[in-house]
């Protein structure tokens, strides 16, 4: 047990050391760099899986549920701690899987289209690992900044006017959000005198009423900073163009960045304003549900209106964000459990979509999207062309590469729409079932109107995704104006297929997955185990 404790720091140290070491080598040795980077990410995945095993092995309800690691070996509330529980282990594993897929995809050509791709990528992983593991608010800020700094570099990777312009907006917005982050953190510190999350959870119920306003203002401002990252309407207008502009593997790994915002909302809202917080319980829940619903409406219209695939993928990220935010705002263990399942499934799906788009775009004439739209709008004179072909054999032989891409595209459409048999269906089903049975299965509880609205929107957003994907799919694979067989390498298709296979595996192993997310959600709704895991056993009197 003793040495496994040090595993907690591996997801931070390993990418940091790899990223720094890769700086020492010249860009011309790109094969070497790629090998080192991928090997390091494989190790990261192994470490994340080991941590997942540790978190999953902990008996439920015990303090061991949250394993903490004192980085400088100072006792908990005074120094930096890393905390592992089921939620952070799950997020780490998702990050590692996604990173590996994107890296493998990138070695086909993207990693050579600009300097220091692998270093930036590893630093991004370091920031993400730290953000998921950290146990205090200020380190959360530091790791957020590490992640963002790396993401600025990655977004600009490959350069070009569009990337630089979107990058400029992205950086400016995130710098402003970081200012809000700091204001929120310092307000909370000013009121409570601590930054350790577990300690905060202990102190918040005891905050005197005259200071509550300041505390809530601090929490609200902090929340806005994360909601900017998560892309909640009206804070998420920057997201689609930034994600569209990013190179394909970068766009794929950026999908997890919005989920960091959601992870923090989930963690902090349930830890700080969970059931023991007295009058403050559930602070911000209504705002989150309303914001999530607004995001869903905006993103669903965006999905339907998208003329290009990149924009479609960007709006799909927003759909997933909106659904998750609303689910987090519900603050119910069953809903959160479904939401965690959905988080994993939708992250893999949208990432696969980002990578697939780049391959599919190669098969199309430039500007095909626009042409197709104009033809639909003004009617088309294509009938003669169709007649000419009627004498020939019925059906078109689809080239192999296009067939694989088409099947992947179809799977992604199923996943986004939430249709069986893939995991998108299970995830949405788990979430909706949680929403409609707030007091357990079959209870006669009254279902509020906003829940009905949310349920309807979640289903509608799936339908919109299906319509949009069908339209794009037909245009691209069935009725292209000109068939260009794309040159696709195995390393480019393999990560997409791997992510889709994982989604399939999550359907087959749905039971185990749901068990895990349910345990994670229950632990989140019982902050005392987290607090004890960090601060050690506390006399029951001090516990909220």
């Amino acid at each position, binding site marked *: 047990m003793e040495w496994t404790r040090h595993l907690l720091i591996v997801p931070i140290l390993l990418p940091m050391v790899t990223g720094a070491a890769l700086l020492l080598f010249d860009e011309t040795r790109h094969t070497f760099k790629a090998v080192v980077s991928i090997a390091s990410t494989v190790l990261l995945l192994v470490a994340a899986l080991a941590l997942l095993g540790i978190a999953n092995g902990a008996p439920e309800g015990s303090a061991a549920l949250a394993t903490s690691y004192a980085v400088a070996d100072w006792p908990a509330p005074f120094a930096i701690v890393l905390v592992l529980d089921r939620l952070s282990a799950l997020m780490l594993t998702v990050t590692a899987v996604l990173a590996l897929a994107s890296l493998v995809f990138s070695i086909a050509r993207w990693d050579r289209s600009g300097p220091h791709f692998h270093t930036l990528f590893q630093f991004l992983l370091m920031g993400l690992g730290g953000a998921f593991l950290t146990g205090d608010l200020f380190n959360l800020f530091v790791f957020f900044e590490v992640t963002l700094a790396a993401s600025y570099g990655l977004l*600009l990777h490959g*350069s070009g006017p569009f990337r*630089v312009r979107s990058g400029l907006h992205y950086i400016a917005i995130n710098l402003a959000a970081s200012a809000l982050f700091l204001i929120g953190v310092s307000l909370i*510190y000013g009121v409570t005198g601590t930054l350790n999350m577990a300690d905060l959870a202990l102190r918040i119920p005891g905050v005197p009423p005259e200071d509550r306003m300041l505390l809530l203002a601090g929490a609200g401002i902090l929340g806005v900073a994360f909601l900017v990252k998560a892309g909640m309407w009206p804070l998420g207008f920057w997201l689609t163009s930034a994600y569209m502009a990013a190179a394909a593997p970068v766009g794929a790994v950026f999908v997890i960045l919005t989920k960091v915002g959601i992870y923090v909302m989930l963690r902090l809202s349930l830890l700080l304003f969970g059931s023991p917080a007295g009058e403050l319980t559930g602070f911000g829940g209504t705002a989150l549900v309303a914001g999530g619903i607004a995001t869903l409406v905006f993103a669903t219209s965006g999905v339907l209106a998208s003329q290009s695939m990149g924009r479609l993928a960007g709006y799909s990220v927003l759909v997933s964000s909106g659904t998750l935010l609303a689910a987090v705002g519900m603050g119910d263990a069953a809903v959160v459990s479904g939401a965690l399942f959905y988080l994993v499934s939708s992250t893999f799906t949208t990432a696969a979509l980002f990578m697939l788009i780049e391959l599919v775009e190669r098969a199309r004439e430039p500007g095909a999207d626009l042409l197709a739209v104009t033809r639909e709008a003004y009617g088309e004179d294509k009938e003669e062309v169709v007649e000419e072909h009627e004498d020939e054999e019925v059906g078109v032989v689809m080239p192999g590469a296009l067939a694989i891409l088409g099947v992947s595209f179809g799977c992604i459409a199923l996943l986004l729409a939430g249709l069986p048999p893939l995991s998108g269906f299970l995830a949405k089903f788990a979430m909706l079932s949680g929403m409609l049975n707030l007091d357990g299965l079959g209870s006669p509880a009254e279902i509020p109107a906003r829940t009905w609205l949310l349920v309807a929107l979640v289903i509608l957003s799936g339908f919109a995704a299906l319509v949009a994907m069908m339209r794009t799919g037909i245009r691209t694979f069935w009725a292209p104006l000109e068939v260009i067989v794309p040159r696709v390498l195995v390393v480019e298709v393999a990560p997409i297929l791997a992510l889709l296979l994982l989604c399939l595996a999550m359907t087959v192993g749905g039971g185990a997955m749901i068990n895990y997310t349910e345990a994670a959600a229950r632990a989140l709704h019982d902050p005392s185990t987290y607090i004890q895991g960090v601060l050690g056993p506390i006399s029951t009197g001090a516990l909220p």
Partner: protein
Amino acid sequence: MELTLAIAIGVLTGSGVWLILRPRTYQLVIGLSLLSYAVNLFIFSMGRLRTGAAPVLDPSGAVDPASYADPIPQSLVLTAIVIGFATTALLLVVLLASRGLTGSDHVDGRESH
């Protein structure tokens, strides 16, 4: 002292926000810098304003925490300054690249009229 500091933070924030909303990249950079100064002062003030109190404990005798300034906001400010400095430098590079690629210093890369 409280009033002076509050006004200073307010003026910096106000000017910063106004500049961020302007269309020129240079105004954006200055606006973000002013905003980060305001935020740094704000963090500092969250440790309560004290004069003539050291943040470092004197280990020679018995320690009375009440006679020392809170060291944590000071270290937070230091970290925030370093990070803010680095990201602003990065923003400047992107700004120059944008100017070079688009030939305009408008944040959208083209004049809006």
